[in-house]
């Protein structure tokens, strides 16, 4: 029970923190929130092949009682980590240039002021 509890609560806490942060007004906490969510989903993907402690991700045909862990989620999580890493870098760059050119780092659009400027 202990491993399952630890992993499940870790996913839960990371997701909760991520969702709280993405609801913030400014871009920096929002990006932190998306990072937290991607950590949560990476840990979650690990558990999708069921949890096995101390087992290799290959089948040993000579073993008495073959115990193995599913290798596929590990491949999936590797893909997901690389992608979320790249995505975080991209969103940081876009948010930074939005801050530099717009002069503020609020995540919502300032619609009214802009249409007034036009007029």
């Amino acid at each position: 029970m202990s491993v399952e509890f630890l992993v499940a609560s870790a996913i839960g806490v990371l997701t909760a923190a991520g969702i709280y942060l993405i609801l913030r007004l400014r871009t920096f906490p929002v990006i932190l929130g998306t990072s937290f969510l991607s950590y949560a989903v990476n840990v979650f993907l690990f558990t999708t092949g069921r949890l096995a402690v101390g087992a290799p991700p290959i089948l040993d045909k000579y073993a008495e009682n073959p115990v193995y862990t599913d290798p596929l989620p590990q491949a999936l999580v590797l893909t997901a980590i690389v992608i979320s890493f790249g995505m975080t870098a991209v969103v940081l760059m876009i948010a930074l240039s939005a801050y530099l050119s717009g002069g503020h780092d609020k995540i919502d659009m300032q619609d009214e002021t802009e249409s007034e400027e036009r007029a």
Partner: protein
Amino acid sequence: MSHWIITPILLPTLMGAFIVMSVRHQVALQRVFSLVGLSLLLINAIGLFVYALGDDIWVYELGAWPAPFGIVLVLDQLSATMVLLTSFLAMAVMLYAIGSDWDKKGKHFHALYQFQLMGVLGAFLTGDAFNMFVFFEILLIASYGLMTYGGGARRLQAGTQYVVYNLLGSTLFLFALGTLYTVTGTLNMADMAVRVAEIAPENAALLRVAVVMLLMVYAVKAAILPLQFWLPESYAAAPAPVGALFAIMTKVGVYAIIRMYTLAFPQDAPALIGTYDVWLMPVIVGSLVIGMVGILGANSLSRLAAFAAMGSVGTLLIAVASFTVESTGAAIYYMVHSTLAAAALFLVVDMVQSRRPQWQDAIREDRPMPQNGLVSACFFAVAIAMAGLPPLSGFLGKLLILKATAGAWWLWAAILISSVIAIMGFARAGSLVFWKGNGLPESDEPAFEHPKQPLAFVGFGVLMAGIVALTVLAGPMHSFATETAEQIYDRDSYIAAVFEVKEYATVDSHGAEPAGDHGEAATDSHGATEGGH
């Protein structure tokens, strides 16, 4: 064994990499390579389409790993149609982007464009759910670059929202796929279809959660209520040729819904009854209404185009979510029309935007712009197509959808009333922007000069020619769409095609070896078992 099914993915990849590595400083060369790449892609797509007409399903095993262990690419009539549509759209929009000099306003337009195509075409061709996620990410990361192309505070802010929204969508996608893998133990779509049909009752609840999460991911892409908030601002702020190319992006979501929710998660599967069939149609009608009312309420033409794109996806999804052969056939016909029309509308918006230095695309009167007559004729034609008035294919598409949903009075009411609202919206915008200006007093300022840009009009004309062809050839196109729908609902032959054992021609000396190895291994394991005893 031919490899032409994977070239639509490889060609843009290599072309994009080549453009960014070798010719990144010469726009003229970039244009040449981009057009050559797109022409080859179009020829390739036509070839695949002709193959798919023969009702064969072409399954390509990457690395010769058999399904469900390896990743497969699958070409059936639906994916061949989407690949052809994407290549055609990409060609027309690229002509416009070159003709209007959009590709000179920043860096790497052509490379990003090619990578975008790689992601879109990959998502249409893959037969593996996780691979679809990867292609979604590729098309998204290229779209982030295209969305903020050219810079500017408004575009970058809208881009930040767009990226964050889609990052959340991707996270949800991974949660959904992880849960599906836990429940079914596979990521291959055909294998998933088999496993879902015989799911254990104790896993059914988990499956339903995963199915709904996955539907939400596709709903974000297709901009279905209540996940549509990203679309109007992003599309309105994006450069117009990019907005036109993005017309295919919402269709990626629609394609994924058709593919996954007819093949793997049909609404009449024992474990899935009542999971999404109850609430899907009402939210689609909601997004249709929001899109069409948005056309009337928009204060600028770019927002009008964004809401029109959303409304047409809503109309399309009404046909998709009915899940019958007739309605899916209507959906495929309307999908082709709606992609071309939405793209053409974005191009017209850009024509107006660049010809009115003061008001740009705001919906209010201004002095007549250069080439006022020609641009307004373009707007008139595309408004007719988009609103679904005769004689263009939008009318026929809506008629087919109405015929397929006969009996559901509230769907008829939603489609017909929202069409009237859209017609009013287009009429209001067109008369304010193009007509009212003629009555304004002459001003002393010199008239605004704008290049004629014939190639840009050619790009627009190609899209309209596609719509006209779809109208003239409505009979054959509709029977093809119905045939496609029949193939989609013939799930068993899709599954059989994926699992069919394929023979690979090998060189003799090597061909003998794997068999020998295999035999040895079998003897070995047999020996080991005996030893164990």
